[in-house]
């Protein structure tokens, strides 16, 4: 079953005055199918169109042409806006600017309050959501007492409480330190594995994309690669050309390859790299 499906999705906007109208094409003919339970990374540099794409998955933006379906619902159907947002929740970059309430548990309840969920049910869902991101002990804290990573986990809990099929995270770690980044990555991986929630992670950090099941590389509004991480990061030349990083392990194997030492180019993890180098160097 697909949870997110796009058909020839194009997005452009007009700027300038009437005489000199400039049309900027941000997304060009995107066809995408994300299945339930997948953990997908959308990788691209700033201005590649990846965030614009993400905003289409939550009906914040509507396509200029083409269609986007969330769980089979056409996002241009305004009457079903909340059905879409309940199924595909969105987490943003700045942890501060998405927390509404001054107490953690009340923020997690915010969406449920809006949806008119009755108290007993709400109480249970809020507690479950907080437990699933490991923030239950902090339920009475003020967001101001939390670290960036913790705030981001609260924001994720606020989405989880809606019991969505899918969470879209738009560069959730860009403003965090390494510790916070690890926290958030661990949380979303756990949500994917334990709860079967579909994850769409928008990022420009390759080391995050490495951890997903599938990497979609987007450049200048077009999908240029869509494959498992091993097959994406083995294309060192291509990735570097569009200004993206590859893991140091992949880079080393690529550089050695250029020197005539051929190792399996699909190696991206540390363990595999150590194994391969050990075989090569043990003599």
């Amino acid at each position, binding site marked *: 079953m697909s949870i997110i499906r796009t058909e020839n999705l194009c997005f452009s906007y007009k700027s300038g005055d009437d005489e000199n109208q400039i049309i900027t094409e941000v997304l060009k003919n995107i066809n995408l199918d994300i299945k339930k339970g997948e953990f997908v990374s959308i990788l691209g540099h700033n201005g590649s169109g990846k965030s614009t794409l993400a905003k289409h998955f*939550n009906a*914040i933006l509507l396509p200029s042409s083409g269609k986007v379906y969330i769980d089979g619902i056409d996002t241009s159907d305004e009457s079903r806006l*909340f059905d879409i*947002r*309940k199924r595909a*929740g*969105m987490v*943003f970059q*700045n942890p*501060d*600017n*998405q*927390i*509404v*309430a*001054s*107490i953690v*548990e*009340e923020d997690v*309840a*915010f*969406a*449920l*309050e*809006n*949806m*008119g*969920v*009755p*108290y007993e049910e*709400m*109480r249970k869902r*809020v507690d479950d959501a907080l437990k699933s991101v490991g923030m239950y002990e902090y339920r009475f804290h*003020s*967001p*101001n007492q939390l670290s960036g990573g913790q705030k981001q986990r609260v924001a994720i809990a*606020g*989405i989880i409480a*809606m019991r969505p099929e899918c969470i879209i995270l738009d560069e959730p770690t860009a403003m965090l330190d390494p510790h916070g980044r690890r926290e958030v990555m661990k949380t979303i991986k756990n949500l994917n594995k334990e709860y079967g929630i579909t994850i769409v992670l928008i990022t420009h950090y390759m080391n995050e994309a490495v951890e997903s099941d599938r990497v979609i590389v987007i450049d200048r509004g077009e999908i240029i690669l869509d494959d498992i991480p091993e097959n994406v990061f083995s294309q060192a030349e291509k990735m570097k050309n569009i200004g993206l990083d590859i893991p140091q392990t992949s880079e080393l194997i690529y550089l050695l390859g250029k020197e005539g030492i051929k190792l399996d180019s699909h190696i991206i993890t540390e363990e595999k790299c150590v194994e391969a180098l050990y075989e090569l160097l043990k003599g």
Partner: protein
Amino acid sequence: MLKDITLGQYFPVDSIIHRLDPRYKIVMIMIYMIMIFSGDSVICLAIGFVYTALAVALTKISLKVYFKSIKPVFPFLLFTALLNILFIRDGDIYFHWKFIKITSEGVNTSIFMMVRIILLLAGTSVLTYSTSPIVLTDAVERLLSPLKKIKFPVHELAMMMSIALRFIPVLIEETNKIISAQKARGAELDSGNIIAKAKSLIPILVPLLISSFRRAEELATAMECRCYNGGEGRTRLRQMKSGKADYIALSVTVFFLILTMTVNIKLK
């Protein structure tokens, strides 16, 4: 530190007063104000004092804290008292020298005034020390909800208030950061005349405003993504339940009001 504003003056201790339903507390403070300002005899004030002392004692917050809230207004209090003494010229004359004339009425009024204001401050402190600003906002929204019928934007105002409370500390932190950054570029913030001072605020206010707009926009999007659609049909995680303690507290308050009123009428 500026950071303390967030908590308002809330003192998170566990006391009977802290546990009271905030809606009742607001109603009680209203009754309390009527009580303090309607009684105009010493006995009335004594009744008011007993009530206040009882409430203060029940909050389990040190008296020092209460004195601290009264201290800053003290000079102002003395000044008004002085004006009252000097300008009220009815009643028996205690002292007369040139244009200075101190009368019994003047002394009475100024003492009453002072005691009333001190009681009022102590009483409101009981409310703000025992109730966080967020809960207070919420309680006001619920108390005013009948006004929604006449299209008064009760929910919107409360939402604005609670978002403001949420972001005050964030913006304070941001302001401090911007001040440091501009100082690092050699900005002088506290020198020169008023115009120079006002001008030196521009490098701080402009970035602050721009970032506030950005935050507001992002927050609005995030709220919409979480199905926010105004106050219509909302349910609440925070339950406000009134119980025995609230009924007793309200009864006691009403009793004190009636007592004050009776004494007042009897003495007239």
